C-alpha cells in the first residue's frame, strides 16, 4: 500500500468531477486544490524534519500522471508547485528563512507559483532583464510581461532576476516573495486553447522583501540542479497521464467495436497497437529519467554536466511530441466519437491540453540549446550506465 498515492485517489476523483467545468470556464480548480491541501499533498516532497511527507520525486510524478488522466490543468498546477518546492528543498537548506518557510509550506499547505520567464526574453529563462535592487536590508524587484500560472491564486511566488542592476543578463538569482510582499497588475488574460484551468495570466510583478529571502545559490545552479530536471520530468508525467487516458478511451472504442463485429478487427485496431508502442516509449523515457535524476543527485558534477542537461531536455522533447502523436492516433481510432466533445471517447480536451507541451518552453528553443551542447557532448553509445 502506498500512502501518498492512496490519499491522491480522492483528489483525483475530485479533479475528475470538476474537470469539464474548469476547462470550459477557464477557472482555477478550487475543489481539487482544497482536496490536495486536505490530503497534505502540497508538502509531499518536503523532508519529514520540516513537516512534509518526505516522499521521493517518483511518488509526485505518479500523482501528476493520475491527475493528468482526469484534469490536466490540476495536474500541471500541482507539477509546477512541486517544481518550486524542489528548489526550496535543494537550495534553501542552511538558510534560516528558507527552512522556516518550508515548514510553513507544510503547515499551511501554501501554493507556490513561478515567475521565471519574462517579456522580452520569452522562454529563455536563463536570461533576465529585471534586477534585484538592494536598498539596505531589503530589495525591490519589478518584472514586466511575466506569464504566471495561477498567479492570482498563489500564496508565494519564486521569481528570478539579475543579481543587481549592473550584472549581465545571465548572472541571475532567485527569491521567494509572499503574497503580502508583492503586487500583481494583470496585463493579459488566459483564454487559451488548452490548460485553461492553469489561469496563466500575464502580469507586471512588483515586490519588496528582506534580502534574506533571496536564495544564496546562483540561479544557474538552481536551474540545473533542481528546476530543469523536475520540470521536464513532472511535466512529462502530466502529459503521459493525458496521453494514456486518450489511448485508454480509444481502446474502449476498439473493444466495443470488436464485440459488435466479431468477424474481424475494426480498422482502428492496428493503430491502437502502434500507439501502445509509442506510449511505452514515452513511459520508459520518463521512468528512466526519474532514475537518472535520482542517481545524479548523488554527484554534483553529474548534476551540472552537459550529458545530464541533454538527457533531461530530451525527455521533454520526446514526451511532448509523443503525447500529441498518441492522442492523434486515439482520435483516428475513435473517429467522430473521438472528435465530438460529448462522448466517452472524446479526446478534444486531451489534444488541446497536450498542445501546450511544445510551446511551454518552445521545443525549437530547446533544440537550439541542445544542438549547441552537442558540439561538446558525446553521443552515449552504451546501453547500461
Amino acid at each position, binding site marked *: 500500500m502506498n500512502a501518498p498515492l492512496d490519499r491522491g485517489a480522492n483528489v483525483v476523483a475530485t479533479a475528475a468531477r470538476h474537470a469539464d467545468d474548469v476547462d470550459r470556464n477557464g477557472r482555477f480548480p478550487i475543489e481539487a486544490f482544497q482536496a490536495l491541501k486536505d490530503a497534505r499533498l502540497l508538502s509531499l516532497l518536503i523532508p519529514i524534519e520540516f513537516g512534509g511527507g518526505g516522499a521521493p520525486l517518483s511518488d509526485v510524478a505518479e500523482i501528476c500522471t493520475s491527475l493528468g488522466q482526469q484534469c490536466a490543468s490540476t495536474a500541471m498546477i500541482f507539477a509546477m508547485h512541486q517544481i518550486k518546492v524542489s528548489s526550496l528543498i535543494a537550495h534553501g537548506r542552511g538558510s534560516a528563512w528558507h527552512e522556516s518557510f518550508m515548514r510553513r509550506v507544510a503547515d499551511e499547505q501554501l501554493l507556490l507559483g513561478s515567475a521565471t520567464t519574462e517579456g522580452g526574453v520569452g522562454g529563455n529563462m*536563463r536570461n533576465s532583464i529585471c534586477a534585484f535592487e538592494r536598498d539596505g536590508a531589503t530589495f525591490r524587484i519589478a518584472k514586466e510581461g511575466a506569464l504566471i500560472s495561477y498567479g492570482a491564486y498563489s500564496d508565494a511566488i519564486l521569481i528570478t532576476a539579475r*543579481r543587481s542592476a549592473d*550584472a*549581465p*543578463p*545571465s*548572472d541571475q538569482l532567485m527569491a521567494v516573495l509572499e503574497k503580502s510582499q508583492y503586487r500583481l497588475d494583470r496585463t493579459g488574460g488566459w483564454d487559451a486553447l488548452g490548460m485553461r484551468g492553469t489561469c496563466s495570466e500575464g502580469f507586471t510583478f512588483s515586490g519588496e522583501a528582506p534580502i534574506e529571502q533571496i536564495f544564496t545559490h*546562483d540561479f*544557474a*545552479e538552481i536551474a*540545473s540542479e533542481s528546476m530543469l530536471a523536475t520540470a521536464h520530468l513532472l511535466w512529462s508525467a502530466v502529459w503521459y497521464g493525458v496521453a494514456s487516458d486518450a489511448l485508454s478511451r480509444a481502446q474502449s472504442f476498439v473493444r466495443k467495436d470488436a464485440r459488435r463485429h466479431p468477424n474481424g478487427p475494426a480498422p482502428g485496431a492496428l493503430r491502437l497497437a502502434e500507439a501502445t508502442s509509442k506510449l511505452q516509449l514515452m513511459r520508459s523515457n520518463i521512468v528512466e529519467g526519474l532514475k537518472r535524476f535520482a542517481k545524479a543527485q548523488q554527484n*554534483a*558534477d*553529474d548534476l*551540472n*554536466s*552537459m*550529458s545530464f*542537461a541533454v538527457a533531461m531536455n530530451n525527455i521533454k522533447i520526446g514526451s511532448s511530441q509523443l503525447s500529441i502523436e498518441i492522442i492523434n492516433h486515439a482520435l483516428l481510432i475513435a473517429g467522430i466519437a473521438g472528435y465530438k466533445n460529448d462522448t466517452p471517447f472524446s479526446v478534444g480536451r486531451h489534444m488541446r491540453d497536450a498542445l501546450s507541451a511544445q510551446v511551454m518552453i518552445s521545443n525549437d528553443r530547446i533544440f537550439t*540549446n541542445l544542438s*549547441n*551542447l552537442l*558540439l*561538446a*557532448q*558525446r553521443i552515449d553509445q552504451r546501453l547500461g550506465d
Partner: protein
Amino acid sequence: MLDTIRRLVDEQGRLAVAAETIGDNADLYATGLTSFAAVQLMLALEETFDVEFPDRMLNRRSFSSIASIAGCLHELKEAA
C-alpha cells in the same frame, strides 16, 4: 597558458569585462559566461591546445574560472 586562455575567453566568452581584469579564480559565470558561450570556448580551447575534453569534464565546474580551465588542460596534457 593562462594568457592564451584569457585571449580565448575574450574571443569566445562574450563577457561584460576584459579577461585581463578577471582574477585566475574569479567566477566566470558571474561575469556573464553562459552555457552557450562555454561550449564555444571549449571548442576554441580544444583547437588551440590540441586536446579533447572528455565527458567527465563537461560540467559547470570545469569552466567556472580561468584556473579551473587551466587545471583541466594540465590534466589532459599530462595524460597525452
